[in-house]
C-alpha cells in the first residue's frame, strides 16, 4: 500500500516535473512565465485525437501530437513573443495570458466546448503483477516516459553545443551573444524544448484522463508554475525537484487526509509551498544568475 502510493507520487511528480521544466526552460532564457504553456498541451491533445480519428497508428499519432506541441511553441514565440522581445517582463506575461485566452476561445469555438473522448489503446488499462504487488500500466508509462525525457534533456543540455549555450544563456544571455551565438536560435530552441515537454506531458496527461477539452491546460500550467517557483524559478534542476515534491505532497495528502479535511487539500498544498518559500525564498535549488552592475 505504501509502496503503491510511492509509485503514484513518482508517477504524478514526473508529469509535473516535465511541465515545470517546460516553463523553467523558457523562463531561464527570456524571463517569461509562459502561461500559454497549458494551451500547448491542449493543442497536442487535440492533435493526438485528430491523428487517431484519421486512423494513424497509435505510436505515429503520439509522434504527430508531440511534434505539434513543439512546432506550436516555436510558432508562438515567432508570432507573439518575438515582436515583444525588448518589452518588459510584465508585458511579456500579459502577452502570454492573452495568447492563452485566445487559444482557449479558438478551441472552444473551433472545436467544441465539450470534452472529446480519446480512446486509449486497450493495453493501457491493466496492471503488471509481482506476487501480490501490482503496478498499473498507466503509472508505469508515466514514470518511464518522464524518466527518459529527463535523461534525454540532460544529455542534450550537457553534450550539445546548443544545449551548453542554453545553460550559459540562463546565466548571462548577453555574453552568449558576444560569442557569436544568435539569440534567436537560443530562444527558438528554448521554446522548441518547452513545446516538446508540453507535448510529452500532454500525452501522459491525456493517457490518464482519456479526454481533451479546451480548458485542459489550466490545471497543469498552474501546477507547473507552483512546482517551478518551489524549485527556484528559472532553475532546471529546481523545476524537476519542485515537480516531484508537489506530486509527492499531493498524493500523500490525498492518501492520508480524512474525508472531512479533504476539501482543503489544495489549500494545504499551497500552505506548504509558502512554508518552503519562507525557508528558502529562492526556491529549493536556486537558479545561477550573474549579478550585473
Amino acid at each position, binding site marked *: *500500500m505504501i509502496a*503503491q*502510493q510511492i509509485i*503514484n507520487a513518482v*508517477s*504524478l511528480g514526473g*508529469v509535473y516535473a516535465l511541465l515545470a521544466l517546460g516553463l523553467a526552460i523558457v523562463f531561464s532564457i527570456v524571463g517569461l512565465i509562459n502561461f500559454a504553456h497549458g494551451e500547448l498541451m491542449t493543442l497536442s491533445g487535440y492533435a493526438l485525437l485528430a491523428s487517431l480519428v484519421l486512423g494513424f497508428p497509435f505510436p505515429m499519432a503520439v509522434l504527430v501530437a508531440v511534434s505539434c506541441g513543439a512546432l506550436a511553441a516555436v510558432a508562438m514565440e515567432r508570432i507573439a513573443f518575438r515582436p515583444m522581445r525588448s518589452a518588459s517582463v510584465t508585458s511579456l506575461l500579459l502577452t502570454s495570458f492573452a495568447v492563452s485566452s485566445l487559444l482557449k476561445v479558438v478551441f*472552444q469555438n473551433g472545436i467544441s*466546448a*465539450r*470534452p*472529446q*473522448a480519446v*480512446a*486509449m489503446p*486497450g493495453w*493501457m*488499462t*491493466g*496492471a503488471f*503483477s509481482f506476487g501480490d504487488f*501490482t503496478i*498499473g*500500466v*498507466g*503509472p508505469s508509462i508515466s514514470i518511464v516516459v518522464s524518466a527518459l525525457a529527463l535523461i534525454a534533456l540532460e544529455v542534450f543540455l550537457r553534450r550539445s553545443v546548443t544545449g551548453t549555450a542554453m545553460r550559459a544563456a540562463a546565466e548571462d544571455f548577453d555574453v552568449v551573444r558576444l560569442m557569436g551565438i544568435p539569440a534567436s536560435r537560443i530562444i527558438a530552441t528554448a521554446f522548441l524544448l518547452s513545446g516538446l515537454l508540453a507535448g510529452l506531458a500532454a500525452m501522459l*496527461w491525456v*493517457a*490518464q*484522463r*482519456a*479526454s481533451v*477539452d479546451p*480548458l*485542459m491546460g*489550466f*490545471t*497543469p500550467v498552474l*501546477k507547473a508554475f507552483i512546482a517551478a517557483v518551489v524549485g527556484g524559478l528559472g532553475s532546471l534542476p529546481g523545476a524537476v525537484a519542485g515537480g516531484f515534491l508537489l*506530486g509527492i505532497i*499531493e*498524493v*500523500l495528502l*490525498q*492518501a492520508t487526509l480524512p*474525508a472531512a479535511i*479533504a*476539501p482543503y*487539500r*489544495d489549500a494545504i498544498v499551497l500552505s506548504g509551498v509558502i512554508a518552503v518559500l519562507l525557508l528558502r525564498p529562492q526556491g529549493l535549488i536556486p537558479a545561477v544568475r550573474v549579478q550585473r552592475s
Partner: protein
Amino acid sequence: MPSLYRLHRAALCAAVFGVAAVSTASAEEIIIGAATAQTGVLAPYDQPALAGLRMALDELNAKGGLGGKYTVKLMIKDTRSDTAQTATVAQELIDAGARIMITPCDADPSISAGQLTQPLGIPTLTLCGSAPVLTGAVGDVMFGTYPADNVQATAVADFAVSEGKKKVFLLTSPDTTYTANLPEYFGKVFEKKGGAVVGRGTFTMGQPDFSAEITNIKGLADKPDLIMTAAYEPDFPAFIQQLRGAGVTIPVYGADAIGTPTIKALGKLVDGVVYTAAGYAEPGSKLEAFNAAFTKYAGHAPESTYEVNGYEIGLILDQAVKTAGSDDPKAIRNAIANLRDFEGITGKITYAGTNRMPLRPVALMRYEGGEGKHVETLIPDAADVPAP
C-alpha cells in the same frame, strides 16, 4: 474620473435598453431569458438542453406562441459556467424584461439566478439542474425539470440491489451539490435495502490524478462490488481510465451526467457503466419521433436526453401560459406548480404536490460496446426516495 464616466454610461445604456425592452415587449410578446453556459464546464450540458428548448419555442412561435398567444423572444446570455457571472447576466436579462428565466444545469448558478428572480416572482426553470435542494434553497419561483438527484439515485440503487450488489464504495466531490449528494442518496437507499457502504473517497473537480484514491480502493479490507459516483466530464473519464489502468475491474455506476457522447466515445473503457436518462426512445415512442424531428431541426441527432428535456420545458411553459391565460409571471408560476400528469415526450410529468422537483420516469442505461443500451425505465417508489 474614468470610473464615474463609465458608471454614467452604463446607466445610460440600461435606460436606453430598458425603454427598448418596454417598447418591444408589446402585448403579444413574452421575453424568456436564458442565462446559460455557452463556455466552460457546464456548456456540454446547457447547450443540448437549450437546443431542445429553442426547437420547442420555434415550433410554438410558428403556432402563435406560448398558449397560442404570446410570441416568444428568447434572449440568451453566456454565464461562462461561473456562478457570479450567472447572477450578472440574470440581472441583465431581468432588466431587459424577461418574464421567465432559464438557468444552467447546475444548482449553484441556478440558485444565484433564482435569488434575483424570487423577489420579482419570475418563474425560473433550471435546464437540467437536478439537485433536490435547489428549489428549496430559492423559493416558490424555482422549478427543476429533470429527474431529481435523489430520484435518480433511488432508481440506480433499486437496480443495483436487484442485480445482487452488496457493497458499494462512494466517490464524491464537495465541489458541486450534484457530485457531493447524489452518491450519498444512493448510499442511503442502498443501505436501507440491505447493502453496505464499505468506503468513501473524495476528489476535487479538475483533479489531475486519482491514483491515491484508487490505491485506497484497492487496499480496502472489505472489497466493494460496486463504485458509485456522480463525477462527470472530464473527471469521470480520468477516474475510470486510471481505475482500469491500475487493474481494478469493479463496476462503476453513475447518473445522468455521464450520458453524453464523450463518455460513450470512451468505448470499451466504459463497458458496463450504468447511468440514467430522462427517457429512452423505444420504437414507436414519442421520444423516437422527437429524436427524428430534432435531427431534422438541428442537423444532428440528440446527444442525450437533455435535448428532449429542454423541449419539454417549452411544452410545460406553453401549457402553463395556456392555463394562466396571461403572461403574468405569477400566474405562470402558479400554473406550473399545479401541473399534474402532464403528457410530455418522455412520460407523465407532475409538479403538483412536490417541492417543485418533478415526478417523472427515470430510464436506466448501460454502456456496452460503445453504445448506450436501455436496461429499464421506472418511476421509483416515492417512499424510497431519500429526503433532500
